[in-house]
């Protein structure tokens, strides 16, 4: 009986919160807000905020066409694997105090798990046989190469900062990093971590493939690149994966740099004078709310604003940008963390 209950609990974690359903809703919401904000900044009315939901459900009903040149099985399976990959990844990113499965993957693993949706997409694109997809996957891979270096430096800097502050050398576990921040304040308040946070903010649009780093799916020149041959439900799944990835990356930022807010919320709940299960639920609810609000703010700042004011870069410019400017920010942070500044 207990086993069944436990199994149900974990199933709920995977499928509802913090797994699939939650990140599905928030991700779609973020996409909708992003589209709306960009439109308003360009003096357009823009679609309704729920438009991504409508798009998704409409795509599910559309006909799926598998080209003759495509490798059918891989072509159809790849989007599903990508979706599963991002769903599972979301489980490892704590919602402030709330975390499940914290003994499965550390930040270095998360760095790799972030690759899985992109790789699934690359595989599906390659399987479609389209030359547009070929160009697209090449660009996507270069974008991954570009982003990976600064992202790693940021993670190493965080691991070192928290590790030396806790006297344990290094800390790679994400829940420990958040736990440290709850006790000692968010990492962004540390001088040495500010460049890293800036670097991470600059990484967000690249990692999620939005303007000006959406070279891999440039609609106007290579016809959506990797998704050129996709239609119907698989395309919908890809759109969903992208939306969820935005939320994943943004909430990773919150966990790494703003983790201290969770303690504030708990103190707030305690200050009101509540205790017991109700207080726990209220605190969790507030934490979720704050996370969603923060995600919206970060999406607007890092994705929508940047989207509205920049033109698409060429792929070699993307690479150069990340390996010079962003890497420098991250490197400064790493060196400062290393020498205890």
């Amino acid at each position: 009986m207990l086993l069944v209950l436990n199994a149900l609990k974990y199933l709920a974690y995977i499928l509802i919160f913090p797994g699939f359903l939650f990140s599905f809703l928030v991700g779609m919401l973020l996409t909708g807000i992003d589209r709306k904000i960009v439109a308003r900044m360009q003096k357009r009315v823009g679609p309704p905020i729920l438009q991504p939901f409508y798009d998704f459900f409409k795509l599910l009903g559309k006909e799926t066409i598998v080209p003759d040149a495509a490798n059918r099985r891989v072509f159809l399976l790849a989007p599903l694997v990508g979706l599963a990959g991002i769903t599972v990844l979301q489980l490892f990113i704590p919602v402030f105090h709330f975390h499940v499965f914290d003994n499965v993957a550390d930040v270095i693993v998360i760095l790799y798990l972030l690759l899985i949706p992109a790789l699934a997409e690359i595989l599906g694109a390659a399987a479609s046989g389209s030359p547009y997809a070929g160009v697209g996957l090449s660009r996507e891979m270069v974008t991954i190469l570009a982003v990976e270096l600064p992202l790693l430096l940021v993670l190493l800097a965080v691991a070192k900062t928290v590790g030396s502050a806790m006297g344990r050398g290094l800390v790679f576990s994400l829940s420990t990093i958040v736990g440290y921040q709850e006790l000692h304040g968010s990492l962004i308040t540390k001088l040495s971590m500010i460049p890293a946070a800036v670097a991470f903010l600059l990484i967000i649009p690249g990692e999620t493939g939005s303007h000006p780093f959406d070279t891999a799916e440039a609609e106007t020149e290579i016809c959506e690149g990797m998704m050129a041959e996709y239609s119907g439900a698989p395309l919908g799944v890809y759109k969903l994966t992208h939306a969820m990835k935005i939320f994943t990356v943004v909430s990773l930022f919150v966990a790494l740099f703003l983790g201290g807010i969770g303690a504030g919320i708990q103190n707030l709940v305690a200050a009101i004078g509540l205790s017991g299960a109700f207080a726990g639920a209220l605190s969790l609810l507030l934490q979720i709310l704050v996370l969603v609000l923060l995600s919206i703010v970060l999406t607007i700042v890092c994705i929508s604003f940047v989207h509205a004011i920049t033109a698409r870069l060429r792929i070699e410019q993307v690479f150069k940008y990340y390996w010079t400017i962003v890497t420098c920010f991250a490197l400064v942070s790493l060196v400062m963390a290393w020498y205890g500044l």
Partner: protein
Amino acid sequence: MSFLSYQHFPIFTIMLYFLGAFLIVVFGKAKALRHAVAFLCTAGPLALLISLIGRVMVHGEIISYWMGNRTPVGDYAIGIALEVDALSLFFGLLVATAVFVACLYSFRYMERDHNVPQYYTLYLMLAGGVMGLVLSGDLFNMFIMVEILTFAAVALTAFRNKVTGALEAAFKYLVVGSIGSTCILAGTIILYAQARTLNLAQLAAVIPGNFGVSTKLAFALLFIGFCTKAFIVPFHPLAADAHGAAPASVSVLISGVLTKSGIYGIIRLVFFLFQTMNLGTMQFWLVFLGSVSMFVCVTMALAQHDFKRLLAFHSISQIGYVLTAVGLATGLGISAGLYHAMNHTLFKGLLFLAAGAVLHETGTTDLGKLGGLAKKMPHTAALFLIGAASISGIPPFNGFASKWLIYQATYQKAAETGNIGFALVTVIALVTSTLTLASFVKVTQSVFFGQMPEECKNAKEVPFGMRFAMGILALLCILTGLFPGLVTRYLTEPAAKAAFAAGNYINAMMGQGYAERIMGAAAPGAPAVSFASSGVWSPLSWLLLLMIALLAICVVALSGKYDKVSVRSSKEVEKKYQLFYGGETQSFSQVGGGDLFWGFKHNWRHYFSFMHDLHSGIVNDYSLWAVVALALAIVYALIVL
């Protein structure tokens, strides 16, 4: 000591290979007999070594064996010895596994070649040479085995002498390989002049602490000699040439086994014979060489357009990881390095066999001439993808498990020593890993996916025998990735502990108390080694979660007719099912492997053109690199030791 006592197993292991080589010369004309002999003589050693795991790995026993039972007299080793500690056994197992699987593969793969009996003879000689090297307890015997394996490898490289470049590659390998072998011989004899013994254990007791100029010279010579065998930079062009030309099953041996013998030699040299790994300068040297190897070779691989040549460069890049991790000289580092060495044997074997399968069916390995093969060879493509995911370090395959340990080990070393240079190594390792991924995306796209050129239309799935061999390796790739705990506990950690326990090694050979008697207080005991790492990664749980999520998504997708919507009404060509060409009619257009990743290569164009010019293909240049490396090694050894 009864005849079938386990103490005889090491010598049986070595002799079985050479016996097989001999028997095939005699009886090799008959195909069935030949295959039977080859099978038994490769399966036998594997079984013998597996039976030793319990004693050596779990209980930490060190098997010492004196040929003809000539045990040491008066503290002097007079006989020829075999000595098997956990480290030797670990490498022996790798060798035996790779040799066995590649042999299974050869049965069908070599069918169309001429002179097949000679192939098996050389093949078993090569296997015996490497096995003899890793199980030997005698420096001169190590040299003999190095010569045998170099010789067999050269002959096998030139085996398909009609293939472009086979002879050329063999000649270059022979020249530079001989320089390396001569270095090993010269180093051996100089050590002999100092210590008047060739026994590894006795040398390990006498040499450390008494470094004269000649000893340092010998160290540099031996080190460069083993580097040649491991194809560490600057010897990497030889590996690339040799792999490209040799039959795939031989490439497996060269990359999975021969390079390991070099790594094994280096470990024996720095941890046992000279025991210099506590020196920071020595660690720096190894880590530096390893990092340079992994980075230079992965960028070289990105510039390649031949399947096997590309794999060859990756092979050295992965060896760079191993050397880097071993050079850290921490428990976690060595364990991670050995883990990666094992994984490298498995996934690189798998990839070479897949390349061989492509060559077998299409007759070419040029990335520009291939494409869309996943439709014709679905099983090979799936197996290749497993190998590619493993080498690129995609969770949960084995490459990720070991690379992750290497990142942990390097960064932990950085934290322990306070030296930010080791953090740089972590960064290089991860960038290399991403570049590896890019390179395998390129192979996947240009060989197995994308559009199929006319020449590949006749390709079909390779025979079951070949797929079976690949399947074994793929299965091992998955298992060693999913159970890192078991692998480290039973294989790599005992081997890593053995690397620190030179004292035990000496005493097992020369009698209890020998090390303490000769070396006094400096005798290396068996220090407690820490394998603690600060990260967490549990592949099984992750896979379980992924499977649940995938299952749920698939159930929903399939019940929503995810895959049924596109049922075609007729067999005729319909525009709807053609690829989108911006309104033009569909025509063959494959994005060539050379054109991928332009955005990356453009930024690095000066580097790439410099590297291209540097690898001139002239044997004199490569020899010059060898001489320069030797000179630098000698200078470095004289300064720091």
